[in-house]
């Protein structure tokens, strides 16, 4: 087999070492990080504001200097040299170490925040969380929680690595604009605005995070808190509903799901910036794709049913029946529409969609007849919710989704576990103007596109046979197009008719031949 080829990573590994300035910058950044870390081991500084400023400043300056030194002293272009030689980015020892450290951090964050310094039962914060007290006091007038600390670090990561990403892809204005966009939405909508809202005594709300990603948006306490907050609260509730039922379908029809996944979403934002050095680690195996199809549909069905269960538990008899039968009709309608749009290609994917719709329909009817406020389908609803929160909200999106960046690639969560991505993807596949066009016969089958697709899509298999790429999982990051050395791929919006070009005729060969081949 091809095993002997491993030798390739042994030759001249030293040439990928850093120069003095890069080393200094890395040292500075790591010092900043270390300052944050030692607080996690119980060291508490006397002047938190100062130390936070120093450590964050060191991280930012380190990142900026490193990125400038790395990318600005050479001409702009694709810079993936040595990606598969570096330990950190090729699942080497450093990659594993980074994965383990990140994962540990998430475990502490979700289940043992006291070790990060969270003061229990009104006790003052210490350590890492205390470091963020001054910032939290400044923004919302209360001490930091572990979530505030996490939000701040998350935003910091998107900003710092976003800057690096921008320098790396500075020749590519699609990458430039979309990265500025995710940086803006993270800083403004995910981090600052919700904190200000709390300061003004409004409910915490991240306007861009819609249900089902924000899975408890329709919970009784959530809806009540909106209803209790006057006009602005009502607006938030209506905006949230409009987001999922009007705004997002329209935008997805016009631009594909990328408007959200690669331009707005915070999970996507972190994946595209901090996760960029690991994007090639996504599995391209057929088995991964099969798993993806199962898991993404299951998660979606589960997320929707759970919400329906929770909502019905606080509605009146009548409203509840209306909701249930309304949903059944909606699902029937979706089924009919899918059957219509996919009548010419009834394949495994269509089957999966039908199965999901059928499961949903069965589920809501069962909920109607068997669910009680305390129990969704015979299972304690409180337990079910915390199980979901644990399995999907924490374990999946955090521990595996981010903690495993250096091992499984940057979009594991988006690919296997995000119900939002599933719903948007479903629409992208069936009813959207978005596609990736392939350019005639210019593909040389080199494989750059497939290697660097973070969603594990085998882009090359489409490009080399002249087909357009219309895939529900494509988040429209545009990296396949960026790394293609022959200018074969273009993300485009256009008429939905013949979007897939499933019967492609290669340009370049005699016309009559294509007829023969089609026969």
């Amino acid at each position, binding site marked *: 087999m091809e095993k002997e080829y491993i030798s390739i990573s042994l030759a*001249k590994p030293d*040439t990928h070492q850093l120069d003095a300035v890069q080393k200094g910058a890395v040292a500075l950044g790591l010092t900043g990080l270390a300052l944050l870390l030692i607080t996690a081991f119980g060291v508490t500084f006397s002047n938190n504001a100062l130390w936070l400023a120093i450590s964050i400043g060191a991280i930012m300056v380190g990142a900026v200097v490193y990125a400038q030194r790395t990318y600005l002293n*050479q001409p702009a272009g694709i810079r993936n040299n040595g990606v598969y030689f570096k330990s950190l980015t090729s699942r080497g020892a450093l990659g594993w170490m980074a994965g383990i450290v990140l994962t540990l951090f998430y475990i502490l964050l979700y289940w043992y925040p006291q070790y990060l310094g969270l003061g229990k039962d009104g006790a003052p914060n210490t350590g890492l969380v205390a470091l963020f007290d001054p910032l939290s006091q400044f923004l919302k007038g209360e001490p930091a929680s572990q979530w505030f600390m996490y939000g701040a670090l998350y935003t910091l990561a998107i900003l710092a690595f976003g800057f690096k990403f921008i320098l790396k892809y500075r*020749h590519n*204005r699609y990458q430039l604009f979309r990265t500025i966009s995710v940086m803006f939405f993270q800083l403004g909508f995910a981090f600052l605005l919700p904190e200000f809202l709390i300061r003004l005594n409004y409910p915490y709300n991240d306007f861009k995070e819609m249900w089902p990603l924000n899975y408890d948006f329709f919970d009784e306490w959530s809806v009540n808190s909106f209803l209790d907050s006057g006009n602005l609260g009502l607006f938030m509730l209506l905006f949230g509903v409009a987001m999922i039922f009007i705004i997002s379908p329209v935008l997805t029809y016009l631009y594909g799901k990328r408007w959200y996944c690669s331009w707005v979403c915070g999970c996507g934002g972190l994946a595209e910036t901090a996760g960029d050095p690991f994007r090639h680690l996504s599995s391209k195996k057929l088995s991964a794709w099969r798993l993806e199809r199962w898991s993404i549909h299951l998660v979606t069905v589960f997320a929707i049913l759970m919400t329906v269960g929770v909502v019905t538990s606080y509605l009146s008899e009548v409203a509840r029946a209306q909701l249930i039968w309304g949903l059944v009709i909606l699902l029937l309608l979706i089924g009919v529409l899918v059957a219509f749009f996919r009548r010419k290609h009834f394949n495994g994917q269509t089957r999966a969609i039908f199965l999901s719709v059928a499961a949903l329909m069965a589920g809501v009817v069962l909920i109607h007849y068997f669910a009680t406020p305390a129990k969704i389908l015979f299972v304690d609803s409180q337990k079910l919710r915390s199980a979901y929160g644990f399995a999907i909200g924490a374990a999946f999106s955090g521990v595996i989704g981010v903690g495993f960046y250096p091992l499984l690639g940057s979009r594991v969560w988006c690919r296997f576990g995000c119900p939002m991505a599933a719903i948007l993807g479903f629409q992208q596949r069936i009813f959207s103007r978005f596609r990736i066009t392939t350019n005639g016969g210019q593909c*040389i089958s080199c494989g750059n596109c497939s290697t660097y697709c973070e969603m594990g899509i085998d882009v090359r298999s489409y490009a080399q046979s002249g087909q357009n790429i219309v895939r529900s999982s494509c988040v429209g990051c545009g990296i396949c197009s960026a790394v293609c050395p022959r*200018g074969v791929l273009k993300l485009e919006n256009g008429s939905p008719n013949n979007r897939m070009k499933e019967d492609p005729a290669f340009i370049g*060969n005699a016309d009559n031949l294509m007829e023969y*081949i089609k026969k």
Partner: protein
Amino acid sequence: MDHIVIIGNGIAGATAARHIRKLDNACRITMISEETDYFFSRTALMYVFMGHMQFEHTQPYENDFWSRNRLELLRDRVMAVDTDRKELRLQTGEVIRYHKLLLATGSLPNKFGWPGQDHQGVQGLYSKQDLELLEEYSATTERAVIVGGGLIGIELAEMLHSRNIPVTMLVREKNFWNSVLPDEESAMISRHIKEHHIDLRLESELEEILADSNGRVKAIKTKKGEEIECQLVGLTVGVHPNISFLEGSGIETNKGVLVNRRLETNVPDVYAAGDCAEQRQAIGERKAVEQVWYTGRMMGEVVAQNICGKRVEYAPDNWFNSAKFFDIEYQTYGWVWSKPKENEASLYWEHQDGKKALRLVYNTTNGALLGVNAFGIRLRHEVCDSWIRQKVHINEVVKALETANFDPEFYRRHEKAIRKHFKGRTAIA
């Protein structure tokens, strides 16, 4: 049951195998290669060396694709072909019988008999084994010299540069690839090569390669008498068909295996496709031996039809090709010669950053578009192709430039500047 044997698992052989299977579900198909177990993309070798990809990423199909389609793979070397008995003799001593034989054996790097060309550390870049050799030599290389300024030469320069190995490039012409590119483009690329700190020596030719006492390269001498110390010499002065094993087989050869339009050789049931095939009568302005990926694919498609009893001619449409010179992408459609031919003129625009350019070649008697060179701007194959095929007038083309743009969204557009620059410059008799 017919046994169809294909020598070579490159793009020509692999494409033919896939299409034969589509056309004939019953026949037995065997693909033999000495190079690798599975078909891989030769064009991606550079990315493996630069650490962008691992070797398995260059394989366009998953490994079980071949067995699922009952395409038998054999890793061996064909030593001789006996066309009377319809037998192949393999290096392992095995003998294989065929009903139909496809020769898709590709190329070998040229060596022009330079003194010292067989020293250790002197190599071409074509096969996977060449890449492994390069891996070995480059580990002990302080400076490398590349002889020849073609597409593979510049790739080799970029590869070595990515490992921080200083590179000197000897180019015979007065600018890089000037035998193919017109002067302006050629000068632009030369500037870009230097921007990447490649020591580009123009109008320089190799005289001799010198070795140390262990037989390893230690320097080269140029015709101008310069001596350049180096431990690695890359010979990238073109390739020639890999057909020496056919001697005495009765299959007619010239530079390559001679074939007619249906890619049949002089011997019944023996066909040839890809780099190793030579058209008895060149097609239009095309070369008789075509050595690019695309022609390999197209010949593979055609030869499959003929092997399966359909009569289809290899009749390629407009020429097209593409490459990437460090960071500058290049696409070409139709014919753009380094020096205009009779009744030809062109419009040329270059961006002030020196990394984007567009040349439109047209016929001066009727204004028809003949060819396009694009640098740093992606163009739509379909549009350029139909302009050339339909002989669209150059002025119409300039008006409609936007429809051909294939750059990613939000890229700065240059059509207006280009139109302004071209205004009033077309000269039609």
